[in-house]
């Protein structure tokens, strides 16, 4: 009789533990899925919207400045530089936000999905840190000296961001099907 009661008690405890474990897993999966989706969107935005070389080259093209300087008045040149400065600051700010979002994902959730060894994690952290520092330097330079002040740092930041994208792509590759479910990002309303 005592044995039966013991077995029954153990069974109940086991069921309670199982229930608690299931609930805990559910909560994690929901939060994790959201974080994964955000990380995937940040990565897509970097790869397809902000980092393509053709677009970045266009934003910082010396050719446009030369054209405006040689064939337009001072007023138009001022307008051109103002517009380019605004775009350069917006570009670097958006790159930084996306990179921060990816970093938050890595620091908070990545271990659940991707098995990163210590070396990869360290290398990734180094890339993120150098990229965020480069973004801050670029922001200061663009703000103080305009969009044509630091072509070297722009190139380096793009390179570092490219590395981060490649590493993120590897660990998020299993998520490619998520694209089909993500909300349409831009539509016709452009962020300013």
């Amino acid at each position, binding site marked *: 009789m005592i044995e039966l009661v013991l077995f029954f008690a153990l069974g109940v405890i086991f069921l309670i533990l199982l229930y608690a474990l299931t609930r805990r897993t559910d909560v994690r999966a929901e939060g994790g899925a959201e974080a994964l989706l955000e990380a995937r969107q940040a990565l897509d*935005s970097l790869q*397809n*919207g*902000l980092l393509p070389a*053709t*677009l970045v080259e*266009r*934003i910082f*093209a010396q*050719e*446009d400045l030369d*054209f*405006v300087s040689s*064939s*337009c*008045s001072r*007023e*138009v040149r001022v*307008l*051109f530089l103002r*517009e*380019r400065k*605004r*775009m350069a600051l*917006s*570009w670097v700010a*958006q790159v930084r936000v996306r990179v921060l979002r990816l970093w938050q994902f890595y620091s908070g959730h990545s271990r659940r999905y991707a098995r990163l060894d210590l070396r990869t994690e360290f290398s990734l952290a180094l890339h993120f840190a150098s990229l965020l520092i480069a973004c801050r330097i670029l922001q200061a330079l663009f703000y103080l000296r305009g969009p044509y002040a630091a072509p070297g740092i722009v190139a380096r930041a793009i390179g570092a961001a490219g590395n981060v994208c490649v590493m993120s792509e590897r660990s998020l590759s299993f998520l490619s099907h998520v694209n089909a479910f993500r909300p*349409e*990002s*831009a*539509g*016709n*309303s*452009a*962020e*300013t």
Partner: protein
Amino acid sequence: MDVQKAAEDVHRRTLATIPRALDRFIYLASTRDYNTGMYFHDGLAARFSAEVACEALADCHQEAYRQLLLCPVRELVSQMEAYIQSSHTRPRDFIAAWRELEPYRVAIPVRTDPFSAEFLFSNFRIALAILEERLVNSRRSLRVA
């Protein structure tokens, strides 16, 4: 596969006769219903299907948009000059309308990256300023002559 064939058809029959990216961009935007975001082309829909025609036109629109986005300012200015001439509008009216209404904002394809769209709008603003300045200068030189 059908979409690709339909896009080739659009290129061969229609876009081949429109040499400038700006004109192609405006034309393709005009085939889109603003209420639904769907593209319509009767001839293309008859040859393929309405859905395939819509997708093909959307692809062509995206392509024209990318070409325009990557245009140097010099080229954008000359494309706009040619577009004004072909539209038979007075340059002064055209510049005023584009400045105030910014019609290019509703002409961009859906699912466009907001940053790239803003960059194109910025280039349009610069090109309009250059065109306006050229217009003022040409009037001045006419008066002097």
